[in-house]
């Protein structure tokens, strides 16, 4: 009886060890990375600092984009920007005059699509790494990343698209999620238009949208 219990315990411990091993390795790697970062003078990760940075970034974003775009980002988590090239996002394309647009997600690829049909065109993977790494990370706050994409698309769409790595839809963002987001965007726009129609004063005050 005792031997059976001991054998069972050994099996349980062995199984637990196998299960826990990857988790333990990840924790140890994290500890090692933090120790190395501290040894070269990089400040420790501070969630409060990151939250304050994100708050500042949101204020900057809000002050730069149109009211509609800000509300879209606040409510849905992404911004739609209309494409400005004649034929399509890239040279040599011909969409037959159909308008196209981009969805800007923070720290995710920019997704190009056709608003009329909902067809996804491409993912443009682009980053804005700050190699000075002031706090050990090259990653801008989420809203700064979204604003950088917005400004670069508005200011020089071809240049940004030219810098990006091009992938077919679905490489990083699940196409079902994008389709869901497009549906949410349509619902959101309808609700917003209804609200603006009910409050003409508010509508006249949002001439930037």
């Amino acid at each position, binding site marked *: 009886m005792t031997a059976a219990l001991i054998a069972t315990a050994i099996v349980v411990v062995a199984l637990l060890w196998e299960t826990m091993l990857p988790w333990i390795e990840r924790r140890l790697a994290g500890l090692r990375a933090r120790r190395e970062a501290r040894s070269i003078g990089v400040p420790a990760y501070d969630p409060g600092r990151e939250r304050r940075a994100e708050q500042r970034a949101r204020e900057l974003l809000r002050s730069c984009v149109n009211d509609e775009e800000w509300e879209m980002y606040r409510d849905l988590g992404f911004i739609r920007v209309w494409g400005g090239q004649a034929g399509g996002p890239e040279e040599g394309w011909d969409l037959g005059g159909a308008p196209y647009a981009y969805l800007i997600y923070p720290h995710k690829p920019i997704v190009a699509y056709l608003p009329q049909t909902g067809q996804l065109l491409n993912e443009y993977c682009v980053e*804005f790494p700050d190699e000075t790494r002031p706090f050990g990370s090259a990653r801008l706050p989420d809203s700064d990343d979204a604003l950088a994409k917005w400004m670069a698309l508005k200011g020089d769409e071809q240049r940004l698209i030219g810098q990006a790595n091009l992938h077919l839809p679905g490489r990083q963002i699940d196409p079902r999620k994008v389709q869901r987001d497009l549906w949410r965007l349509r619902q959101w726009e309808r609700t917003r238009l209804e609200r603006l129609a009910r409050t003409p004063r508010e509508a006249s005050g949002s001439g930037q949208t």
Partner: protein
Amino acid sequence: MKFLRMRPGHGEQLIAEGDPEVAEDEQRLVDEFRRQLDAGMWAAVPVTSEAGRREAAMVHDFGQIPRDTERVIFFPRAAGGGR
């Protein structure tokens, strides 16, 4: 005119400020502009179109910045990601 720079862990940082109509300030702004671009930054100016829409213009030279601009925003240049 304010120069703002996006930074990880900070949000935007004020890196220079001055009146471009004052020669001394202008030179300081020109120097800082060059320094940021040499450090690999892109510079954008928030603008408002004639229709009243907010847009952005990328600037590659100090002379391209409209004189009445209040803010120039610097951010790291784009690089392809997700490989």
